[in-house]
C-alpha cells in the first residue's frame, strides 16, 4: 500500500466516505464534458429526476465531432449537428458553462482545461474520456470515466471508486536530440506493456520529467492510459506554477500565495512508499514508432519489426494479428515504410510546443508528392498563438493543410478519415484497428517532429536526419 504520495494525499482529502460496497465515495473537483459521452448521462439524470449538484464545477466543450475544414452551422453531418445541439441544450438547461465553436476557448477538452487554468494541482478531475489522465501533468488526480459515471458526477459531484496502487516511474537524465516526451511514454509502454498499469496510478518522477515543460508532461500523462494506468501524474513544481499563474481560472492575489503553499504540501514525500518503482535512463530512449495495433507495439526508428521469437509468449498472438493487419513482416526495418497521410494534432500532441517542433522540421522543406499532410491545432487558443508566430504559414508553404481545432483524425468521428488501406503517420495516441476512420486503415504513432519528417520524406524516417 502506497503512503505519503501525492496520490494518497489527494485521495484522502477528497474522500467523502466509504460506501456500503466498500468502495470510496470520492469528491470530484472539476468535471469536463463533451458531446459524445454526455447526452446519455443527461438523459439518465432526467429519467431519475435528478439535478446537477454543482453546475459551476462542470465545464463543457465540443471537440470529437467538429469538422476541421468548414465549421459553419448547421454541420453538413446531421448526426454531428444533433450531437452539438444536444450539448447546447443540456448545458443551457443545467446552467453549465459551454465553450462553443467561436468562443475563443473551444478545443479538445484536454487542451482547453489546462490552458484556461481550470486544471490545477491537488484537484480530482473526471471526464467521460480516457485521456483525462493528461491533467495529471499538474499534480491532479484525473480519471477517465464512462457515461453512467458522468451521470454520477453530474448528480453528486462524486464517483464510487476503489483506490489505485501507485507505481513510481522514474526517468533520469537528458533526452537525446530528436527524442521527445512522446518517445518517452511510447518507450515506457513498450517496456511495461499496455496492461502493465492496470490497477495503478503512475507517478512520473526523476530528472527527465522535472526538466520537461507542462506541455511535455501532458503528453506523457495523456498516454498513461495506453499503458493501462487509469491516471498518471507529475508532482507540481515551479514549472507548474509558472504555467498556471495569471490563467483565467487560476487563483489570484492572496489566493495565489495560499494556493502555492497548499500545492507544495501535496507533493509526494521524500520518503513516500510506493507499491512499485521502475527506473529508466533517458539516454536509452530512441525516437520511437509503433508498428502494430496497440500502443505497446513500439520500436526505435532504427529497429526492425520484431519477430515472434523476440517477443514474450503472451504478446505473440496480437503480434501475428498485427503483422497481417499492418501488412508488415517480422524482421522488416520500420524505416522506409511508405506513408499516405500525416496527421499532426490531438490531445496528445496538438499544443503549441508540438506545432513548433513540427514546424522546425517543415520549415523550408516540401511534403513528399502523394502524401496528404495536415495540422490540426488542439484549440482555438493554440490556433491563434500559432498564427501569431507564423507557424501556419510555415506549414502551408511546405504543403501541409492548416485546419480548425478539434479531435480530427485521432478517432475520425468527423470528416477527417483514412480511406481504405491508407497508412498514416500520426501524432495521436491510438493505433487500434480502424481507429482513424477506415476499418482497414493503418496508423503508426510517433512524435509530431517524426510525423513532419515522415511527411517530408514520404516514408518513416529518422527525425535526426532533418534536425
Amino acid at each position, binding site marked *: 500500500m502506497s503512503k505519503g504520495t501525492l496520490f494518497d494525499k489527494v485521495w484522502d482529502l477528497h474522500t467523502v466516505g466509504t460506501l456500503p460496497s466498500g468502495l470510496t465515495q470520492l469528491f470530484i473537483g472539476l468535471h469536463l464534458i463533451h458531446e459524445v459521452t454526455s447526452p446519455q448521462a443527461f438523459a439518465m439524470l432526467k429519467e431519475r429526476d435528478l439535478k446537477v449538484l454543482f453546475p*459551476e464545477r462542470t465545464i463543457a466543450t465540443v471537440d470529437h465531432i467538429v469538422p476541421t475544414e468548414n465549421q459553419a452551422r448547421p454541420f453538413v453531418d446531421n448526426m454531428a449537428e444533433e450531437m452539438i445541439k444536444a450539448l447546447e441544450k443540456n448545458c443551457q438547461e443545467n446552467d453549465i458553462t459551454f465553450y462553443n465553436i467561436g468562443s475563443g476557448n473551444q478545443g479538445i477538452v484536454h487542451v482547453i482545461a489546462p490552458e484556461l487554468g481550470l486544471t490545477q494541482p491537488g484537484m480530482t478531475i473526471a471526464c467521460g474520456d480516457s485521456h483525462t489522465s493528461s491533467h495529471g501533468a499538474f499534480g491532479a488526480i484525473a480519471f477517465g470515466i464512462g457515461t*453512467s459515471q458522468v451521470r454520477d458526477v453530474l448528480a453528486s459531484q462524486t464517483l464510487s471508486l476503489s483506490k489505485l496502487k501507485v507505481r513510481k516511474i522514474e526517468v533520469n537524465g537528458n533526452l537525446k536530440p530528436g527524442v521527445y516526451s512522446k518517445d518517452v511514454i511510447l518507450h515506457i509502454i513498450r517496456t511495461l506493456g499496455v496492461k502493465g498499469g492496470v490497477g495503478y496510478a503512475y507517478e512520473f518522477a526523476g530528472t527527465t520529467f522535472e526538466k520537461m515543460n507542462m506541455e511535455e508532461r501532458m503528453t506523457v500523462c495523456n498516454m498513461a492510459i495506453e499503458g493501462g494506468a487509469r491516471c498518471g501524474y507529475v508532482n507540481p513544481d515551479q514549472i507548474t506554477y509558472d504555467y498556471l499563474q495569471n490563467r483565467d481560472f*487560476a487563483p489570484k492575489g492572496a489566493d495565489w500565495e495560499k494556493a502555492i503553499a497548499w500545492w507544495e504540501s501535496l507533493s509526494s514525500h521524500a520518503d513516500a512508499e510506493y507499491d512499485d518503482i521502475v527506473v529508466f535512463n533517458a539516454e536509452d530512449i530512441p525516437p520511437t514508432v509503433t508498428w502494430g495495433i496497440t500502443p505497446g507495439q513500439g520500436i526505435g526508428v532504427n529497429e526492425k519489426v520484431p519477430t515472434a521469437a523476440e517477443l514474450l509468449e503472451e504478446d505473440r498472438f496480437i503480434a501475428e494479428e498485427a503483422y497481417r493487419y499492418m501488412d508488415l513482416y517480422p524482421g522488416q526495418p520500420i524505416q522506409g515504410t511508405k506513408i499516405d497521410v500525416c496527421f499532426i494534432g490531438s490531445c496528445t500532441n496538438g499544443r503549441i510546443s508540438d506545432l513548433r517542433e513540427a514546424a522546425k522540421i517543415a520549415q523550408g522543406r516540401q511534403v513528399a508528392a502523394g502524401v496528404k499532410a495536415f495540422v490540426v491545432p488542439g484549440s482555438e487558443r493554440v490556433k491563434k498563438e500559432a498564427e501569431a508566430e507564423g507557424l501556419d504559414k510555415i506549414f502551408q508553404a511546405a504543403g501541409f493543410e492548416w485546419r480548425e481545432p478539434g479531435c480530427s483524425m485521432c478517432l475520425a468521428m468527423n470528416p477527417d478519415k483514412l480511406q481504405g488501406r491508407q497508412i498514416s503517420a500520426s501524432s495521436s495516441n491510438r493505433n487500434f484497428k480502424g481507429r482513424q476512420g477506415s476499418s482497414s486503415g493503418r496508423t503508426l504513432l510517433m512524435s509530431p517532429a517524426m510525423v513532419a519528417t515522415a511527411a517530408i520524406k514520404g516514408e518513416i524516417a529518422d527525425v535526426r536526419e532533418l534536425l
Partner: protein
Amino acid sequence: MFYPCRDALQTCLRGLLIMVSEVKQVSGNAVPLIGNDIDTDRIIPARYLKAITFDDLGAGVFVDDRKALNGEHPFDQIHYQGAKILIANRNFGCGSSREHAPQALAKWGIKALIGESFAEIFFGNCVAMGIPCVTAESEVVKQLQELVIANPEEVITINLEKLQVQIGDFTASVVMSEGTRSAFIAGTWDACGQLVANAQQVKATAAKLPYIGWGNLAAS
C-alpha cells in the same frame, strides 16, 4: 438468464430513488472470444458513437472484426447466438472509456464476462451497468473457452457468492474484488442513488478543499 436476480426493486430512501437489483449468479450459454488486448474501438467502432442514445449499438458490436471474418466471428456463428456470457482473455476492453462498448455487448445479449483480466475503465463501466466481470487464471480461462468451443450448448454458471464458475462437471474459482462482489450480491452496484443521498457529506468535504473557494469557478 439472471438467477435469482429479482426485477429492479425501487426503494424510496430519504425521498430519493435508489435502484436495487441483486446479481448473485449469471447462467447461460457462453461465447468464447480468443485474443488479448481487444480494445473498445474493436468492440464498437467510433462511428457508432455518433448518437445521443445507446439504442442502436447492438448492430455495431465488433462490426469491423465480423465483417473481416465473413461470418466466422463468434458473434456471428450460429451456435453462439443467444449467449449471455462472454469469455475473453487478457486486458479485454482496453482503450477508450466509452461506455458504448459494454452497452453494445449488453444490447447483443451479454450479461456477464469471464476473462484473464479487464481494462479498468471497462470494468467500472460494466459494474455501473450491473454486468459482472470476473477474472480467472489464464489456464482456467483457456480451458473454459475450449469447453465451450467443444460444446456450445453447455450452460455456464458464474456464482458470485461462491466466486465460482461451473460448466458441466468442471468448476473453478474466479476472482472479483470484495467491494464490487458485495455490491452485486447486495444489489447496490448502481451507486448513483447512494452517492446522491450523501449530498450533505459531499458538500462538507468540498468545503474543506481550499480550491473550492478561489478562482472564477468558486461556488456561488
